[in-house]
């Protein structure tokens, strides 16, 4: 699946917060969290923590990381890499762009950064 979906205008997701795109809207199996960092960048990861059941969109977003609200594993928003225990499995990334003043999510398409580090 490579078609972009419109997530809204950039200021609809406040900086330092995230918006969840549900599977029925994205067409992929898992909810996706679209993060807007304090420095104004957009990133997207699967929303459910790889450790247990928690929504990363409800976590603490700081710099280019998000800290899980349940047991505090952190993930790199650019690459999805898990940065500390208890989670040991990385989060899949999804590509997000800002096109013509809209935030566009490409569910299932890995973010460029992730694609690069995977090489």
């Amino acid at each position, binding site marked *: 699946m490579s078609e972009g979906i419109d997530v809204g205008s950039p200021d609809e997701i406040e900086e330092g917060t995230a918006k969840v795109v549900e599977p029925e809207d994205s067409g992929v199996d898992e909810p996706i969290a679209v993060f807007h960092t304090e420095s104004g960048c957009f990133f997207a990861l699967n929303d459910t923590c790889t450790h247990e059941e928690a929504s990363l969109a409800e976590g603490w977003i700081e710099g280019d990381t998000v800290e899980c609200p349940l047991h505090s594993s952190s993930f790199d928003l650019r690459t999805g890499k898990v940065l500390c225990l208890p989670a*040991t499995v990385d989060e899949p990334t999804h590509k997000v762009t800002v096109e013509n003043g809209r935030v566009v999510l490409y569910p299932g398409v890995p973010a460029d950064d992730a694609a690069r580090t995977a090489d």
Partner: protein
Amino acid sequence: MAAFSAASELRARGYDGALTLLSPEGLPYDRPPLSKGYLLGSEDAAKIVLAPEDWYAEHGVEVLTERAAALRPSEASVELGNGRTLGADRVLIATGARPRPLAVPGGEAALTLRDRADADALRAALAPGARVVVVGAGLIGAEVTSAAVGFGAEVTLVDPIDPPLVPAVGEALARRLHEMHGEHGVRTVASVPVEIAASDGGACLVRLAGGSAVAADAIVAGIGIVPNSALAADAGIEVDDGVLVDASGATSNPGVFAAGDVSRLRHPDGALARRAEHWEAAVRSGQAAAAGMLGEPAPEFGAPWFWSDRYGAHVEAVGTLDARSAGRIVLREADGLPQAAFLLADDGRLLGAAAVGFPLLIRAARRIMDRGLAPDPAALADPSVPPRKLIH
């Protein structure tokens, strides 16, 4: 946990020599779910392993399902339970702890919870309608009680302290947490058992101080843990309610380190810390010991943190809420219920925070403490101030 943490930290720090993990229970797994999802049956054994099998191959960690029987630091070796001897230049003792037994006549009838087999046995005992007496209303006792209620058991929770956990979460949240038991149909009794007597049809009678007695189909004791420090003591290593270590996990023997629940920190001035018995402390002390084993300086860590869950409520605390020695408590309340408590030092710095159901408050508090900031007490107390705004 501490052993896994140390192994992954050794590799992260570039150690590329041989690394063996003795784990008599097989692939290392996480213990917190044993009183939560695993006990309830929503998570299985495969779900709670710390890392999948491939992780160990990828990181060059050999897992042997064997016990250490004796340490021979002078010969740079460890004797295994199967009689084999393993060469080891550095040894980490991360043997954890075992539940404190219920030391009253008949107390051996009480179940305890530390490993997967204990959780399996406990789950089997938590049938709908079963009369369960839980002794100890600390974190483990409260979680087991909550799980037992989930199974439809009829629970009596016995603890002499009412409410428990005041030093950990402060008086208001401790009371709020303890009241949840009653709200879920649990009978709480402020007492201690003095004897467990056999009764009809395999049931027991738990006699309490003060003269009352409670009939029980199952008894569970969650009254603290005892460090598994015999390996260290037998090898002549200093032990005092835990294997004594410095900030790098070094014991009194230069080839031997310790981390996790079995260890107890001795400060440079000789004062002994309380043993840390939480998950994060095991992770951190494992990382510190990895640094120590490589001769590198111990990493600096912020204030200690833990979580616990009961009746679907997620509890977290960072630092201390023990106001007996210093500071004043600031409460954040909404609709008459306390959401969070903060302990402020006289100079305005934050010493600790606890919350029931507001994890971002704790993440904010952690950062405030790590940065040594003095937060605005009025903002801390105001439930309309979002956690992120507390930092500025």
